[in-house]
């Protein structure tokens, strides 16, 4: 049994962040001062050069939240390199970025507390921009920089492309935000691990909930991102097995209007609509239109929209009211509350924790545990240690949820209670667990 005491988020310390911000502010001031002097003394050519420098400085500065590369140093000794493929600029950035930010916080926290085996962790980050064709080269680059374990903070389509590269290099990886079990099913699945429940578990919950509510005719609205297209191959057949899917409408990512698709769904007169989307502004567009054109109709969604607080406020008033999504942050989990407290202290009062944060945090803790137990950085040893982990209590899911791994079981969640159906209330904010069916542990 794995004890979690050592993984609990510590009390707040934000001094190093404040110091870094102060240094950046000072650097920006100095550059602006130089530009002003140049304008007075040196004329236009020098100004152009300084403008270029300023742009470069701005680029470096803006790298803080969505960095191409972040390096976190701490204890003495040769760093242990952890790679992260963080989708920070594609449609999957809506989940890749928050998870990536928590990975950085987790690594920083581990280093503050003495590192792993007395050595600091060093995080190297690359971005696949939600483009699965870029993922293999991104992962190779991370491995080339010495990554001993990789965190795939990107969509399921990209994880599929990372698998053969990781298999060939024998380097273990966690996919904290992936929900497609294709990530951990053969071929080339020996080194990839997932934490939360996969999409097949999602469909069990949706089907049970719709059956209990008496919904028989389901309309589906989906986007065409690579991640969702791959996900739908698993999702839709399973939904068809339990309800009558009366229509499936698609919209390109970047669509400006989904009125025709919603009008087509309306013609089928469904009892409920399911939205399969990467979330973000695209899902808001869909939910706005569904609420406008089919008010009062039951709506279900994947997990994304529930984990994107930044987008709730941009939905039309009450557009999310009644929408049920697959949540993984469940009230009553003490580890989630501890992590919420830690991250709030780190980031300030406006921070709103999501399941992505919890899963990213747990991924880093599991890698740390595996390295400590293996006392080695050999990829095969790390994989074996990960496969021996039992009973880890994560910061996501219901309080009784445990994660266990074994050869052939690379999805951590033991049972359905890593999930909960959560419903949006008035004010476009999650209002709590949906009444009716809820998944149980065991």
């Amino acid at each position, binding site marked *: 049994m794995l004890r979690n005491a050592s993984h609990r988020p510590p009390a707040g310390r934000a001094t190093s962040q404040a110091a870094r911000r102060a240094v950046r502010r000072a650097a920006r001031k100095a550059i602006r001062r130089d530009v002003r002097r140049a304008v007075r003394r040196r004329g236009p050519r020098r100004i152009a050069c300084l403008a270029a420098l300023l742009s470069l400085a701005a680029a470096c500065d*803006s790298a803080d939240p969505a960095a191409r590369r972040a390096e976190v140093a701490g204890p003495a000794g040769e760093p242990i390199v952890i790679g992260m493929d963080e989708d920070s*600029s594609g449609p999957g950035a809506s989940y890749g970025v928050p998870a990536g930010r928590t990975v950085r916080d987790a690594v920083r926290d581990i280093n503050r507390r003495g590192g792993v085996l007395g050595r600091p962790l060093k995080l190297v980050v690359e971005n696949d921009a939600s483009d699965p064709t870029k993922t293999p080269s991104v992962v190779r680059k991370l491995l080339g920089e010495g990554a001993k374990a990789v965190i795939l903070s990107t969509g399921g389509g990209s994880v599929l492309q990372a698998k053969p590269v990781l298999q060939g290099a024998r380097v273990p990886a966690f996919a904290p935000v992936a929900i497609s079990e294709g990530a951990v099913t053969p071929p080339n699945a020996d080194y990839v691990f997932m934490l939360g429940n996969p999409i097949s578990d999602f469909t069990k919950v949706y089907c049970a909930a719709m059956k209990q509510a008496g919904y028989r005719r389901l309309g589906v609205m989906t986007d065409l991102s690579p991640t969702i297209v791959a996900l739908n191959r698993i999702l839709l057949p399973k939904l068809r097995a339990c309800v009558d899917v009366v229509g499936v409408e698609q*919209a390109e990512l970047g669509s400006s*209007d989904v*009125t*025709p*698709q919603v*009008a087509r769904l309306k013609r089928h007169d469904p009892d409920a609509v399911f939205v399969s989307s990467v979330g973000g502004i695209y899902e*808001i*567009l869909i939910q706005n239109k569904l609420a406008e054109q089919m008010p009062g109709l039951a709506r279900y969604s994947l997990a994304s929209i529930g984990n994107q607080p930044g987008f709730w406020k941009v939905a039309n008033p009450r557009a999310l009211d009644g929408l049920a999504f697959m949540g993984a942050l469940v009230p009553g989990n003490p580890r989630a509350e501890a992590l919420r407290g830690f991250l709030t202290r780190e980031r300030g009062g406006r921070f709103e924790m999501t399941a992505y944060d919890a899963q990213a945090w747990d991924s880093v803790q599991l890698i740390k545990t595996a390295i400590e137990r293996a006392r080695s950085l050999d990829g095969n040893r790390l994989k074996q240690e990960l496969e021996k982990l039992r009973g880890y209590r994560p910061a996501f899911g219901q309080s009784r949820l445990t994660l266990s791994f074994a050869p052939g079981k690379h999805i951590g969640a033991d049972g359905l209670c890593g999930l909960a159906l959560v419903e949006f209330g008035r004010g476009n904010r999650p209002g709590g667990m949906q009444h009716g069916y809820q998944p149980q542990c065991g």
Partner: protein
Amino acid sequence: MTDLQIWVSVLEMGCFYGLIALGYLLVLQGAGFFNFALGPYATVAGMTTAWLVAEHEVPLWPAAFLGLAAVVALSVLTELVVVRRVQSRSSGSELPALVAIAAVLFMIEQSAGLAFGHQPLAGQSLLRTAPLEFGGVVVQPYAVLLIGVTVLVFAATALWIRYGRSGRLLRAVGDGEATARLLGLPVARVRLLAFAVSGVVAGVAGLLFAPKAGLQFDSGLGWTLNGFLALVVGGTRTVWGPLAGGLLLGAVQMFVPYYLGSEFVSYVVLGVALVFFAFRPEGIFVWRVRT
């Protein structure tokens, strides 16, 4: 074709594409040039406003003004720093300037990603009232503003070009730049004016359309292409042509997915473009001169 809600969407899309196409027309009349950076201009106006409001809590109207100012500055700089210099060095040849403007398009897109982030931003609605609803048709406040302002912009532009002194100068330069120079007209100033006014129009389009579907740093390329297509369809002989082209394009983009499915939209739009390029390159509206 009886679903009125889809017609509302046609009007929204048509007005937006029409405004971008009007921006093309103004630069074409004043400088004899296709400014393919208009889509990114619209993006920058919307993103600047959204970013200032969401990230820096700047009040909405000052933020919108700053967004428009940024776009006008970009548009004027495009003429002064890129188009004018490239054209003067290439003896007025169009191709080098077109290549340069394509580079400007991608530069603005990437810079917007750097400045405002690569995640989509939600557009800010300048009108925050309850949606209008009649007979089951819902019209959002941003749509009311977009449609109303579009009509005003087109009417004002038509009047300006017909009766305004600078508007008549724009037409004179557009009809023949060399002749205008011989006549001593301020060609350089007129070109600059054309770029500035088209920047305002594109900026207004971006600001008003942003609340509908949000903004992403790379939205501009698609908007550029749709605006250009609206111009091709509508024609360049009257100020109202771009609006007609925009509305036709909007109708295709809304009714094709409704009747045939989303997967056919690109094919049909491409087909429409090919038909116009092949059989009616001058667009729908043409001046007929009696002889």
